[in-house]
């Protein structure tokens, strides 16, 4: 009987040692994890200066005066990654990026002092959107619009809240992920164009963001007072862990 226990203990110890040290019996194999994407985060995201509100909806009791955004930002070289404050997401295989301009490594965490800066902003004349859902710490912080004369905060609040209701976040990550969607809306509120402008490097996340915009159609019709027929919006979707 005692010998049986000895044999059993020896065999168990051997199997455990094999499992953890040599891993020769990795039955599933790494490549068979279809639902896991292997990425490594080189650096933790910088801590936010202010506590991040959990609800991006407008607060009724506080006046909607988003903090003034600095228009001129000559000190920040757009397109050049800053090595200190960045979270770089790398993958074994880079997914195709819609626009060749920014590489996925250049998608950066939204800095508290550069709310309107995204890696793609600045390439054309885009104006920042002032709304309660695009202020600092909000999910859509840093959204920009092609036409600076479109100044209807209510429209952005309603449209972005609608997108937020339709956004089903498909990933859970340890770091910040940002994907920018560009879409165009015509007078009636219909979307005539929507594509991923800056990929997050994660295809499922990009697709979910694009789907959120497409599912939100129709948007509120553009105000009658607005002369143009079309507006184009660049909307960064920001995922932060723990939100």
């Amino acid at each position, binding site marked *: 009987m005692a010998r*049986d226990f000895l*044999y*059993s203990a020896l*065999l*168990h110890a051997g*199997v455990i040692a094999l*499992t953890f040290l040599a891993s020769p*019996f*990795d*039955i*599933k194999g790494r490549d068979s994890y279809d*639902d*896991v*994407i*292997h*990425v*490594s*985060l080189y650096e933790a995201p910088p801590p936010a200066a202010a506590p991040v509100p*959990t*609800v*991006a*909806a*407008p607060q*009724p*009791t506080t*006046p*909607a*005066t988003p903090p003034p955004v600095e228009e001129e930002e000559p000190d920040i070289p757009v397109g050049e990654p800053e090595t200190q404050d960045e979270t770089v*997401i790398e993958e074994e295989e880079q997914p195709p990026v819609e626009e060749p301009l920014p590489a996925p490594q250049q998608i950066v965490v939204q800095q508290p002092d550069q709310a309107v800066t995204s890696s793609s902003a600045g390439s054309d004349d885009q104006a920042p959107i002032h709304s*309660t859902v695009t202020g600092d710490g909000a999910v859509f912080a840093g959204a920009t619009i092609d036409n600076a004369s479109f100044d209807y*905060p*209510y429209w952005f*609040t*309603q*449209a972005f*809240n*609608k997108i*937020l*209701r*339709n*956004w*089903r*976040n*498909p*990933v*859970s*990550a*340890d*770091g910040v*992920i940002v994907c920018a969607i560009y879409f165009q809306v015509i007078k009636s*509120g219909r979307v005539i164009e929507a594509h991923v402008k800056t990929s997050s490097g*994660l295809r*499922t996340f990009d697709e979910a963001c694009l789907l959120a915009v497409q599912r939100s159609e*129709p*948007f*509120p*019709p553009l*105000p*009658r*007072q607005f002369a143009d027929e079309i507006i184009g919006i660049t909307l960064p979707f920001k995922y932060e862990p723990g939100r």
Partner: protein
Amino acid sequence: MKRIPLFLAFSLLHLSFPCVAQEVGVREVLFDTLRTGDVQPTPIGVEQMVYVGSEYITARDSTLMDYATRVVQNDLDFYADFELIVVDTFFMQLYEIAELDLFGWQRLGADYVVRLETEIPGSVMRVRWKLRDANTKSQFAGGTVDRPKEEWRQLGHEIANEIVTTLTGDPGIFLTKLVYVRRIGKAKELFLSDYDGANERQLTNNGSLNLSPAFTPDGDDVYFCSYLEGDPQLFKVSLKSFRTTKVAGFPGLAAAPAVSPDGNKIACVLSKDGDSEIYVLDLQGNVIKRLTRHRAIDTSPTWSPDSRMIAFSSDRSGAPQIYTMDADGLNVRRLTYQTGYNDSPIWSQRGDRITFVSRTKGGRFDLASIDTSGVGYRLLTELGHNENPHFSPDGKHIVFSSTRLGPQEIFTMDVTGRNQRRLTRYDGCSNPVWGPLPR
């Protein structure tokens, strides 16, 4: 000799444990459905309607103005995306609001304020509505609605519809209709009402049991099942002429009709071949195809918004559960595994969720919803028996029957389960269905 297989079995048991995941920074999750509930309703205020005409008005006109204002307020309060700010003298004093201007509304928490100005030339009520932003103090939308004075209720609904469309882009549902079953003595008759329970009108009066109403997509007819001739058979009633006609008669029962969203077919339960199975009929009541073939009971068909799929309930697993299949009867797939009893499915107009009746703790019936992929089961009610769910045409609200207050009455709520309110004041109300948007 017996020990060796035993040792091998133990060894394999160890090996079957998953290896420790390493350096995984991003994981896919099935559905972050809670995020959809993150967005709070937009606070909105509605000012009392003011008269801007030059002539004197009667006391009755003044009352109608109050009524119409209340309709707009109720509509916007009902709508899932908005929350009505109630003017409360307590808060007015607390916040030291002397005058209810845009600053005052902002202090009360409103984002937008509706101003209603009316003129009453002759028998017509003309209302100009203005939508103003309390934060920027600017007017950004407006319009005019004309209606005869006696249609003050429709006038209010029309204004609320335009406000909803301006702010959300979605069509307003305030001019839609409900049809439901109400017990009258021993009979059960169909009744028609506005979406908020007003303007009730009896549709059938045959002293029999009339059940399972189903609107056609154009809103002109309501198909239903009646015991008028003994066995339950299919009938329809026109909402224009209010005339009832028989659609089809089969041996055994013909029940639970559901008209497809494209308006060409009726899915319905027939027992002419033995047990109850789901068939597809044309609008004249001729069988096009039999969809289910199973010894179990298959019932409660409901169409997907694109008319390509049908969800139904079946007890083929031993207890009623929700299944989906293609519109031709293929690809049957079980959708629900939660609790031992799930019945009466209804497919959301938005296409993403299916709501159904689920038996929960203590044998109560509650409404639950699940994603069409089979994940995201969520309970929506928690008091009394709640049954017969049906979606509003914009997919944002659900009408259902509940016994939470004792008698069985009709209630509505948002798809998230919030904002539950009672519509009827009679016992024995059931089977509510929500009509389509008026053309």
